[in-house]
């Protein structure tokens, strides 16, 4: 054995620090000296531990993305309700509920409102008035010399109310309408229609934001 153990130890350290392979004389010493061999293996283990790094929590990437999405200032969309969790500035999702989505939602809301308010009904062959008469019945009272306290009722879908008024007017000297024509939609129905429209818009936004967030976090 040409080299002494302390010298070998020092050279081993220098070679490890420099990341160099061990030269012949050192290898020869290690082959013959179990104590230096053990030291060399510990050095290797330490260097390997430096290099490997500790285990990483399994959900780390998702938690990082979620933290960024949750804590960033939101970028408001031009037409949508501001119900989304907030897309950070500069991190616009590739697809987002924009004007088109909201126009669609508004159209659905409008149809619902029209149906609820009785302005428009799908399937015109069905006699809606028949089964919905109490809701849409309009009662109008007239007062004239020839027809005291004449009154009639009509509905919005059978004889038109305006047609009825004209007939009565022709038969009377003077016609005083003493009861205001009721609104084609009662306040209750109108409220229901507006609520339905608002809810449709709200749910559309929530649903789309939810599915987008899921897509976004998954992608």
């Amino acid at each position: 054995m040409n080299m002494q153990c302390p010298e070998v130890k020092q050279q081993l350290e220098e070679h490890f620090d420099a990341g160099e392979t061990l030269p012949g004389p050192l290898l020869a010493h290690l082959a013959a000296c179990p104590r230096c061999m053990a030291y060399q293996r510990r050095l290797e283990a330490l260097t390997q531990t430096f290099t490997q790094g500790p285990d990483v929590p399994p959900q780390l990437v998702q938690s990082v993305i979620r933290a960024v999405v949750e804590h960033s200032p939101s970028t408001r969309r031009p037409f949508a309700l501001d119900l989304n969790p907030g897309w950070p500035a500069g991190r616009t999702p590739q697809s987002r509920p924009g004007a088109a989505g909201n126009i669609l939602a508004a159209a659905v809301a409008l149809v619902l409102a029209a149906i609820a308010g009785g302005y428009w009904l799908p399937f015109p062959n069905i006699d809606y008035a028949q089964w919905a008469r109490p809701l849409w019945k309009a009662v109008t009272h007239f007062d004239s010399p020839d027809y005291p306290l004449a009154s009639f009722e009509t509905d919005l879908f059978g004889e038109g109310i305006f047609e009825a008024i004209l007939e009565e007017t022709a038969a009377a000297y003077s016609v005083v309408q003493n009861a205001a024509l009721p609104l084609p939609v009662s306040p209750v129905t109108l409220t229901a229609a507006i609520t339905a429209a608002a809810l449709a818009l709200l749910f559309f936004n929530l649903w789309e934001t939810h599915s987008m967030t899921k897509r976004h976090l998954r992608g």
Partner: protein
Amino acid sequence: MACAVQTGEGHAFDVLAERYAARIYQHLYRIVGHRQEAEDLTQESFLKAFRAIQQYDASREFRSWLYAIATNTGRNALRARGRRGPMVSLDGEENFVPAGTENDTSDAQLRADRQAQLAEAMGRLPEHAAALVDLHYREGMSLREAAAVLGTTEGAAKVALHRARRQLRAWLIRDE
């Protein structure tokens, strides 16, 4: 990729997170020596990076920029806490036993033990030295790049790395 984040491309940030989150976590764990804290600081670092992405100079290495943010985040956390990671005496049983010499210990367990020992030893080093060892060995940065991340010179980094290695060897390897 960082440019794609700057211009607001949808999944660019997710790709950056996938590429770097684990590495930044490992770096922070080496600095603070605590898993949950390292995870929280990883999120904080990415949030800072994301908010500052417009200030990122695309002519620089993105990795260096991100690691500089993470290192500062780790250092600030240590300062707020008032001291380094949990101090555990290394004079007892700890030693870097080479794999395969203890039959009753699995390799995975052995690796985990070594990482824990190293974390404790790193906690005794000055924080910039711990960061330096990690950047150079685990992240594979040149001394020059690591020095730039830490805001020091290449010469100073070389001296600090030499000292840190010697110190870690003294703590972690007993010559029997």
